[in-house]
């Protein structure tokens, strides 16, 4: 009941009396405004937080591991990518930026591109993904498997399954591998030495998160977009090239 005037009125179901704005309304709108402004500032702070560590110069003259090569090894600019197949940001780069990098830089002969496995311990299926890709490389289809792994990342990652091998086998079939040969290689965990070598190369250049790129001599962290990537390539092209590590060549499909 609101006040004395209503004291004698009988309650009728379904009838709600109009009332004056409550005193608490001002406090309510003030609270909403505080949450709105506070939340906006919070999100803006998070969104503007640098996603990439500062660019650093690194020594790439003595690469011990070969990675997986795409493009002309004697191209003017050498790019190394250190990535974990389960890392969402690596998947984002692979799906969003990498197609442009391949078409406009690698296939144009401007960049030689090497992918290095950098499986992170918290991603339990990532090492197996690296093995799946290495086994595909035996049949010269590393990049096809690389693309399939990133494209289908949500279905085989740690959160989704404890048995990613069955998914990898499907991809092997889809990309036209000899599945029996691939399966033998995968189950025997061949190429672990190569994968650990790639990972060790990442440790050597100071990789602490994925994806990390070495573009020319600059280390760049995070799933950068094409424009930023091209800026670093242009910058590296203006400098004397670093010697490229030797390794077999694989050709990525578009």
């Amino acid at each position, binding site marked *: *009941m*609101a006040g004395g005037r*209503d004291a004698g*009125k009988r*309650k*009728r*179901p*379904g*009838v*709600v*009396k*109009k*009332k004056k*704005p*409550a005193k*608490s*309304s001002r*406090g*309510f709108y003030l*609270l*909403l405004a505080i*949450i*709105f402004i506070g*939340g906006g500032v*919070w*999100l803006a702070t*998070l*969104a503007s*937080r640098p*996603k*990439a560590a500062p660019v650093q110069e690194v020594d790439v003259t003595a690469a011990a591991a070969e990675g997986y090569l795409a493009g002309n090894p004697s191209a003017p600019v050498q790019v190394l990518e250190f990535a974990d197949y*389960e890392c*969402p*940001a690596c998947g*984002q780069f692979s799906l*969003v930026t990498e197609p442009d990098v391949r078409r406009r830089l690698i296939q144009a002969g401007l960049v030689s591109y090497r992918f290095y496995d950098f499986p992170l311990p*918290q991603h339990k299926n990532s090492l197996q993904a690296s093995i799946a890709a290495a086994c595909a490389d035996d049949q010269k289809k590393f990049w096809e498997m690389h693309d399939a792994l990133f494209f289908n*990342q*949500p*279905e085989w*990652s*740690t*959160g*989704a399954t404890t048995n990613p091998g069955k998914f990898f086998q499907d991809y092997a079939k889809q990309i036209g591998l000899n599945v029996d040969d691939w399966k033998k290689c995968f189950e025997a965990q061949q190429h672990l030495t190569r994968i650990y070598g790639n990972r060790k190369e990442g440790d050597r250049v100071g990789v602490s998160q994925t994806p990390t790129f070495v573009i020319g001599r600059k280390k760049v962290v*995070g*799933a950068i977009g094409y424009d930023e990537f091209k800026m670093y390539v242009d910058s590296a092209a203006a400098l004397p090239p670093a010697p490229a590590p030797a390794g077999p060549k694989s050709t990525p499909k578009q």
Partner: protein
Amino acid sequence: MRPRQVIAVLALTGAFVALYLTLYKMGVIGELSCSVGECETVNTSRWATFLGGPVAAWGLATYVMILTLAAFGVSERGEGSRKISWALVAITGWSVLFSAWLTYLELFVIHAICIWCVTSACIMLGMFVTSLVDLRGRIGGIEE
């Protein structure tokens, strides 16, 4: 503070949590701030997508809908409407069930907990309970 006001405050808070997770899925925010649990494991799992869209974006849409309803419900025009109370109970009730299912997935299928998702589930539960209080206050007569 009246129940619908409480719901509006909770919905606005929840909307920011959902917006944060949505921005993460869109790649605007590099990595999740996750002091407890494994937020990235949960938010990159196959269950982080529902009907073709990120679950967080569905949550954001739901919070905005609840906020709009509750805000209208405290306005002069909507204050007397009992339909709004029923709508709030229905939407928040459905959201609590959906949140409970997601929490079950986190605990028993994904085996990882996302503190932001748990926060959102608690906010949903709080809004549902408050909307029941609001409805109860309106069924059967004159308010206040």
